[in-house]
């Protein structure tokens, strides 16, 4: 039973990673940029949710929607101001800019509100359900259902709508898509908006689950979500979900075995192993490099 309990915890944690990883994977799939600032969009989402619930006394769902909207706008702004000029720049320049944007968001937040953590208010009555001896808390159920609904919504947007079709086209071949009359700039902005909205939602449910947030909280989950995206095969949407869940479960198991301090190291070891042995990820196909 202990193991199933850890599995449940791992899936709750994994769904948060999966939501952030979706944004990474979508952005990487479309402009081949590791958006380091994505973890900080997650942090901003968490703080918007915090202020909405604790200060403006909104309910959980209005707060979630508000955080998602603000993060979507924020993501588009980052893309328009910092990344748009870099479309044709070298990969190193793009990556360094992303690191710069990430540091800028973190330290501007610290500048305005200080580095001290904030305690998240309780949004739903914490109740535990006993399912065959496994304790499942109401917050885990809330997290999981929010995550699943958002993922289904994303799947719908990507596969059934016009903008989703444009996104798939641009990620396949941006130049050909442009020739076909697709507005590539708007499509990239839409990708950033959707990815950032998901990160914002992940931020709010992270706050609800862990009850403690601070301006540097985005760094580690951000990197881990990137690991999840690589694990599933970067650029592949179901891959990000599976990678996130897998990473969450592995981390819970490592903690359960009594190595909780080594949890972060486990994630990096997984990253390095997957990069060395199967760089295209679990769902990826091996593509030969063009010379």
């Amino acid at each position: 039973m202990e193991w199933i309990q850890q599995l449940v915890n791992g899936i709750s944690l994994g769904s948060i990673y999966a939501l952030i990883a979706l944004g990474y994977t979508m952005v990487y799939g479309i402009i081949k940029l590791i958006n380091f600032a994505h973890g900080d969009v997650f942090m901003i989402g968490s703080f918007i949710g915090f202020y909405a619930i604790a200060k403006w006394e909104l309910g959980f769902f209005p707060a979630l929607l508000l955080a998602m909207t603000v993060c979507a706008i924020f993501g588009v702004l980052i893309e328009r101001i910092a990344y748009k000029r870099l479309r044709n720049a070298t990969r190193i320049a793009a990556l360094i800019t992303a690191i710069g944007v990430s540091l800028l968001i973190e330290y501007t937040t610290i500048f305005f509100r200080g580095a001290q953590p904030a305690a998240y208010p309780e949004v739903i009555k914490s109740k535990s359900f006993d399912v065959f001896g496994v304790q499942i808390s109401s917050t885990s159920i809330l997290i999981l259902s929010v995550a699943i609904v958002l993922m289904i919504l994303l799947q719908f947007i990507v596969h059934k709508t016009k903008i989703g079709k444009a996104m798939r086209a641009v990620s396949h071949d941006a130049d050909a898509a442009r020739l076909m009359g697709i507005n590539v700039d708007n499509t990239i902005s839409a990708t950033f908006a959707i990815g950032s909205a998901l990160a914002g939602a992940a931020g709010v449910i992270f706050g609800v689950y862990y009850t403690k947030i601070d301006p540097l909280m985005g760094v580690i989950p951000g990197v881990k979500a990137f690991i999840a995206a690589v694990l599933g095969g970067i650029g592949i949407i179901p891959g990000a979900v599976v990678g996130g869940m897998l990473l969450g479960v592995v981390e819970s198991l490592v903690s359960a075995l009594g190595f909780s301090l080594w949890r972060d190291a486990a994630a990096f070891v997984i990253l390095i192993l997957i990069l060395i042995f199967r760089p295209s990820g679990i769902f990826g196909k091996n593509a030969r490099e063009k010379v």
Partner: protein
Amino acid sequence: MKKSKVFWGYAVLALVIYAVVQVLISTNILDIYYQNMLITICINIMLAVSLHIVIGITGQFSIGHAGFLAVGAYISAIITTKLMLPFPLAIFLGALAAAVAGLIVGIPTLRLKGDYLAIATLGFAEIIRIIFLNTDYVGGAAGMQVEYLSNWTYAFIGVVLTILVISNFTNSRHGRACISIREDEIAADAMGINTTYYKVVAFAIGSFFAGLAGAIFAHNFYIIQPTTFGFLKSFDILIYVVLGGLGSLSGSVIAAIFLTVISAYLANFPETRMIIYSLVLIVVMLYRPTGLMGTKEVTDLFKFGRKGGTK
């Protein structure tokens, strides 16, 4: 003939700088605050130059340099405080341990390219940090007490040695092979250059000197803690190299000196410092992606009159 003259010119310059500062220190014109700042500048120059050989010369984007700094710092601290061996030996062994760590990290990861290499080196640096964090022998999260043994002489010799070795390497046949990898890896491979070998060599040399800097860094404070060697330290070093110019040794040196002095004055406002740093990174990348100096060296700026045909 000409070359050796240039060499002696630099040797005299280095000796003059050393002697002037040494006199200023012994006559107490430079008090302990400025001495400390000088040693910090030296450490940062070593770090910038050692990362320059990996990113600027070989074109391998590594953002885990703080990991090798940590290896040098911890190994040298163990040697002086636990084994009671002399400090110069500790510096050498710390640097050697970092080079070995560089080999261990480099051989598997250097098959990766670009973004993936960056994130893998970041991961390795974190793993190194977490290992030190969980080893009780070196104090775990609380940190390790270290004796204060660094001084201006050690730091200056370290800088001279780093610059000497790395500039000589760059100008050698091996260095040109590394530069060709930076310019176009596939073409370099096709020309018969063993790209993996040169990438690993550059990585190991870079880690060696990062370890050297780490040994002096550890003995410049009374305590070392795993938190010092996180992402932010790696990014700090990266900023020196990027701002100075990807591929310019003198550029990284100048940027290291400049930014160390600025951050010393902003020490009371750490948030402002990081905001300025990040804005500098973004603006430089957007408007001058090769960094301030590009691949030029300072000496190139004084060669207007004799373009071409210098023998």
